[in-house]
């Protein structure tokens, strides 16, 4: 918005721009509010989009999504994600990372591929349903520190819907274990990927036995969204099983709170947008 536009705005409201110079300056500052949008964040948007429908429309989606984007600088990167639909994942991979070799999908999970150096920042993108259900803090575990999930060098703080940034991770053959804070880690299988779906902690996903599609390597009932049922929670009170291999030292509280009792009540504002576009 230009200065002239600000003046016009003031005039529309019956205010003389010359008598309201301070207000005009304030509007100018508001219009130029500094932001922190990075070019590479577009890749995160695409990754999130590839994960499927907006979770706000189906807050209790059953598919637990743990994706990862390894930044190699602006505009390039590597990506891996669990529970992407194979066709979506392949499309995403080929369009965004055409130089990184063919897409490989050995199951419902994709491998994280080695990054060029051990100091390459790794961003782990966490699907919105999981991120919202479990605000964190989260931690990542790597082969270099298999038993240290709370190592200061790999703290994770979830930023819902965008992901988490790992300051320093050794990405080579990276099996990521994300401690969701419920005491049940979520695994992204190491490359080459295993054939099973990612480990889904109890309570993090709603399933309807026998009604899954059986798509890809996911057994029926593993991935189909279930309609929101306010007040229901998949997490039983007191569930707090530590990881068998690597016992998380923090974030293991499972309070049994029915998380989705906080889901939308009444219509989504965003659901009113159907007429647009």
């Amino acid at each position, binding site marked *: *918005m230009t200065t002239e*536009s*600000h003046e016009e*705005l*003031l005039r*529309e*409201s*019956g*205010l003389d721009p010359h008598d*309201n110079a*301070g*207000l005009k300056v*304030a*509007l100018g*500052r*508001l*219009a*130029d*509010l*500094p*932001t*922190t*949008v990075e*070019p590479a*964040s*577009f890749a*995160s*948007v*695409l990754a*999130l*989009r590839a994960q499927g*429908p*907006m979770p*706000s429309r189906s807050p209790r989606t059953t598919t637990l999504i743990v994706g990862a984007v390894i930044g190699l600088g602006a505009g390039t990167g590597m990506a891996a994600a669990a529970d992407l639909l194979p066709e979506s994942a392949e499309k995403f991979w080929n*369009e*965004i990372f055409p130089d990184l070799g063919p897409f490989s999908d050995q199951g419902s999970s994709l491998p994280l591929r080695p990054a060029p150096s051990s100091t390459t920042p790794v961003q782990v993108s966490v699907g*919105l349903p999981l991120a919202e259900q479990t*605000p964190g803090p989260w931690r990542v575990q790597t082969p270099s520190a298999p038993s240290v999930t709370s190592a200061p060098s790999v703290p994770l703080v979830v*930023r*819902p*819907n*965008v992901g988490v940034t790992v300051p320093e991770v050794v990405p080579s053959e990276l099996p990521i274990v994300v401690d969701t804070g419920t005491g049940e880690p979520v695994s992204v299988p190491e490359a080459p990927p295993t054939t099973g779906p990612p480990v889904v902690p109890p309570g993090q996903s709603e399933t309807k036995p026998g009604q899954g599609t059986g798509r890809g390597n996911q057994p029926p009932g593993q991935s189909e969204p279930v309609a929101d049922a306010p007040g229901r929670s998949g997490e039983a009170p007191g569930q707090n099983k530590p990881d068998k291999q690597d016992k998380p030292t923090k974030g293991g509280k499972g309070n049994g709170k029915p998380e989705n*009792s*906080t*889901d*939308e*009540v*009444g219509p*989504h*504002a*965003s659901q*009113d*947008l159907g007429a*647009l*576009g």
Partner: protein
Amino acid sequence: MELRPDVVQAAVDGDLSAQEQLYREYAPRIQAYFLARGVDDAEGLTADVFVQVLAKLSGFVGGPMGLRSFIFTVAHARYVDRVRRRRREPRLVALDDWEDAGMIEAAEEVSLSEAANVVELLRRLPEDQREVVALRVIGDLSLEETAKVMRRSVGAVKQLQRRGLLALRNELEGGEAS
């Protein structure tokens, strides 16, 4: 600067490069809009908006102006969703903020010298007045577009705008007086 119509059309047709241009053009504005609305995770919500925008882009008709209005409509809707959700969640406060809670009054008396101060002043306005000011100034939307996004009449938006600007002026003068 608005996107060229051919870029918008290419984005609608699924061209990834055009969609990235769209993102680069509008994401900062959307993030600024969320910042002005006091969203703590403005970056995350911005990403959320564009996930939805890209999903709905196919078949969009309306050109650059319509696209901008559409994106802000989605942003507004996501903001409303966020507010509703947050009302039922405990508010998270950083430890530093909590420890400095007693200093807030003093901090508010800081003179208006940066954009952050304007945002702070804006947050003191009633919700709907803030929305109008943010959409008009940051979103650069017309009165009509703002009315459409907010689902209000143009007259109502004009009234809210006047009241909002007057309130903002009062806040500014109050800050200067102190």
